[in-house]
């Protein structure tokens, strides 16, 4: 067992934990959080592969590392958009339920 394999397996477990939370937790905000866990697991797996590509004195392959920075920034902006959607839903409906049979509440006047 070496470091990249260990963190690769850690990344895999994070994807599993995040996937479970995404399905089970009913709150939209918690689903966004779980989705971020899945995302970080994917990033970590990519990072472990980058570490395996260490060569010519570099600690890891710089191409995946640069793409990871891009990915983290894009994940943040997607999260911000999702959170803004949830907050707008809350402002309009007074609740944030995703249940299909929830009673439609009239928006506050």
């Amino acid at each position: 067992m070496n470091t990249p394999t260990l963190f690769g397996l850690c990344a895999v477990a994070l994807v599993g934990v995040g996937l479970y939370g995404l399905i089970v937790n009913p709150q939209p905000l918690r689903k966004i959080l779980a989705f971020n866990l899945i995302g970080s697991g994917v990033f970590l797996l990519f990072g472990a592969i980058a570490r395996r590509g260490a060569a010519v004195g570099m600690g890891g392959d710089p191409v995946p590392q640069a793409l990871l920075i891009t990915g983290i920034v894009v994940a943040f902006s997607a999260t911000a958009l999702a959170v803004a959607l949830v907050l707008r839903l809350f402002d309009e409906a007074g609740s944030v339920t995703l249940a299909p049979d929830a009673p439609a509440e009239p928006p506050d006047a």
Partner: protein
Amino acid sequence: MTLALAVDISLTLLVLAVAGWIIAVRDTFAAMIGFVAYGLLLALVWVRLAAPDVALTEAAIGGGLTGALLIGAAARLRGTEAAARAEYPGALTRTLAAVLAVTVAAALAIGVLALPDPTPTLAPAAAANLATTGVGNPVTAVLLAFRAMDTLLEAIVVLLALLGVWSLAPDRAWGGCPGPRRLVDPDGVLAWLARLLPPIGIVVGLYIFWIGADLPGGKFQGATILAAMWLLVIWAGLADTPPISRTWLRVLLVAGPLVFIVIGFAGSITAGAVLAYPEGHAKPLIVAIEIALMPTLVLTLALLVAGAPQRIPPQ
């Protein structure tokens, strides 16, 4: 070597424990604070994976900015917690979800254990061409020279996300200021910190931006620190978010990607390919793009956290 592996194993267990706790804990607000701790632990993992640039980005954006965004949203949605708990799915759904999660993880684990050896790597290619870019940090060279297309599209994606957030404003608030007006004790601790920290924080942010050419660091990490300083001043009530109809704001938001596109297409004339740099001029052009992108990134990152416009625009 075994000591280092012991550190890695305990770090892995800690990351997994915090991740499990984030999913399992009842209180959403606590889960969000757990996510910040999780981001910082992941930054340590990135250091162990010899990726200091990614570690800085993870700590600043993955933990810090995302954490601030989620904590703010959780505080606003606190009233909906009790109703949501009643929707918690039954044992059957939970079991099926667990089976699915374990299956997916197991399939991925088989993939991890079957990775090819030796791993294909672009590190030698990056090292061979590093000198032509004039920058010393290979990650920066990839971001702004070898894979500049990704970075350009990323800058545009982040801007599109901001437009998406803004478009969620109620009609009457369009063009107004994002977020609520913060009313904080002007002599309080927060206002004191917001006066003391920004001058130092701006220097640190610009330093990390500038050092990124040769050492770990760069515009995303530096821009995040500057955005955090601006948000601190806003949240302490010392300044307000600008109305989104301001011309200077819109010009600065577009300036970064625009300069990137102009220099990129100029490359098709001067260097024979879009986003290529003429020989010997790579470094100044990269620096020009980075300086133009910096204000765009600072404003976009901070305004993404600030959220949709909520107040009626000034006359």
